[in-house]
């Protein structure tokens, strides 16, 4: 009889312990950031944000550690090896900005099988066992045309500056822009160039196509190319169209100068590099036992005429406008996805 009683008692204890384990403390958990590339201002800002926010979280004991690792060569095979090393190092969660949406699936699966939580953001992975914090790039493109339709109710000709050919993000933003043009048929895209998300490339490309274009009312962009477009257009005798900016410091500075000089109006939209910190908090919430949907959407950072100065003041020279997310922001994003 004693055995039976003991069994019952232990079952009861196990039941009582259950809810407690569902709200487990994460103070002993280790989180790693696997990053594939650090060679531009956006990625640098992303890593700085990670360091700042996770450093604070480690200090206050929310998690045990949050180390950042970047691969040297931006290659999927190298990052797969990096993830496998993290499995061996005993991390509880891996936050991942992936070099390829599919080529890391094998390594991600290995991590999941080892009981590790994998949260991908920005460069997301398709492996079903991982979480994805995706950016609605289509909406980012569409919202530009919507903004222009408010400013220019009569519509007009648009010049589209695209990103790096063959990259998923470029296709998505461009698809969104074309969707927007369909929605607001008063606009017409009369020219399209690849600016590779770089001011110098964009400037050359725009200068090259300008002579063949009719009057332009607006320039829709993908970020990192607005300042170059402005320089190219300023070199001609054309009237400055509304150029949608991409949150880069040089773009915001130029906008501010124009605003002070002649009341130039536009808006600026891009992804905040601090999205890495959102991914961090989401991983922390999952480790904490929260029920989180596998696909989350990150809000993008939009700067308008009235909050330009505030954002410009916060942005480092040569950097990108940024927000760092808090635990509450992450909870809000998780809630809204339910």
């Amino acid at each position, binding site marked *: 009889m004693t055995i039976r009683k003991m069994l019952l008692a232990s079952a009861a204890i196990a039941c009582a312990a259950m809810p407690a384990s569902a709200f487990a403390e994460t103070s002993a958990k280790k989180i790693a950031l696997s990053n594939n590339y650090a060679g531009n201002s956006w990625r640098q800002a992303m890593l700085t944000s990670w360091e700042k926010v996770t450093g604070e979280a480690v200090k206050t004991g929310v998690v045990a550690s949050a180390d950042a690792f970047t691969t040297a060569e931006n*290659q*999927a*095979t*190298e990052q797969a090896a*990096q993830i496998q*090393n993290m499995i061996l190092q005993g991390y509880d969660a891996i936050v991942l900005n992936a070099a390829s949406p599919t080529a890391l699936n094998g*390594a991600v699966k290995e991590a999941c099988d080892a009981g590790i939580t994998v949260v991908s953001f920005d460069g997301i992975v398709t492996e079903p066992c991982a979480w994805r914090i995706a950016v609605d790039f289509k909406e980012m493109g569409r919202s530009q045309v919507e903004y222009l339709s408010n400013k220019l109710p009569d519509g007009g000709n648009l010049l589209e500056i695209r990103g790096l050919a063959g990259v998923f993000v470029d296709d998505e933003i461009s698809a969104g822009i074309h969707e927007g043009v369909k929605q607001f048929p008063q606009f017409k895209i009369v020219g399209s160039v690849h600016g590779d998300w770089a001011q110098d490339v964009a400037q050359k490309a725009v200068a090259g196509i300008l002579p063949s274009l009719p009057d332009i009312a607006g320039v829709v962009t993908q970020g990192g190319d607005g300042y170059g477009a402005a320089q190219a257009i300023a070199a001609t005798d054309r009237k400055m169209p509304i150029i949608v900016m991409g949150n880069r410091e040089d773009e915001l500075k130029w906008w501010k100068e124009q605003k002070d000089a002649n009341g130039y109006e536009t808006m600026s939209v891009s992804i905040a590099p601090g999205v890495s910190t959102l991914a961090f908090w989401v991983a922390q919430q999952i480790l904490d036992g929260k029920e989180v949907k596998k696909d989350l959407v990150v809000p993008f950072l939009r700067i308008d005429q009235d909050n330009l100065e505030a954002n410009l003041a916060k942005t480092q020279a040569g950097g990108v406008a940024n927000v760092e997310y808090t635990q509450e922001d992450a909870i809000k994003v998780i809630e809204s996805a339910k």
Partner: protein
Amino acid sequence: MTFRLSSDAIRLVIPALSLSLLLAAVFWLQPRAMSYIGLNLLFNLAVPIALATIAQMLVMAVNDLDLSMGAFVSFVACVTATFLRDAPVIGILILAGAVAAYAAIGVVIHLRDLPSIVVTLGMSFVWGGLAVLLLPAPGGRAPDWVRWLMTVKPPLAPMAIVASIIIAVIAHFIVKRSSLGVLIRGVGGNQRSVERAGWSIVAARATAYALAGLFAVLAGIALVGLTTSADANIALRYTLLSIAGVILGGGEFIGGRVSPIGAVIGALTLTLAGSFLSFLRISPDWQIGAQGAILIIVLALRLMLNRLEKREKRR
């Protein structure tokens, strides 16, 4: 001293030594790696690199250099993740055609007396273009049998170790123990005397290239088995990794001096060096430099040994 090591064995000592040293360091840093699963995680991505290194070694055995290795392996990966899964017959035909293309490249390089670096660099754009045509966006899926093969859990030793040993043994027999291997190395060592002995250099070179193509095809298939899907840039690193692997393993750029076992060990060492550095928590800014430093140290050791060897001979 009655017992003397052959010069081939001496060449193997340094790579084997550096691998064991690195492995000991990794085990010390991360005891968790000292297990069946740990070893597999450390080394499974080395399997396709080892295959690519053997392929590169075969090209280097005839005094050539293949700069299209990475692009070719990527192309094979794309074929594996698309055709080999959905239409195996067409997939096999494409891969066979690719091996034939490699043989043809060998023939062209020989007949027109072209520098292999230029031809293969050109071919790398062809393979890269074909890969992008097949998979414009990353995707595809590994055939089930490939996935099974790369995740199989053999008894005693993990897949990565078993596969490395099998690759090394097979390559060793082809290159060191068969008459074909002697011929290939002979072309690299002294082409004219091989020719005068009545052998066809064109055939030898074509065979070396075809074998290289075959091993590169296996590398691409193995890679997809690990990653489960492909993209057109998946293996671009393999060009330099495979060359470094051959050199690390005791091979040389000219003279037909190559070592298959050494090449596999070289590939494992390169993979392990990356893990070692990340376990050390060296900041990413320094990692490339540190990786280079490991390479230089191993090569310096070898140079020293070569000198010793020469001095011995002179005596």
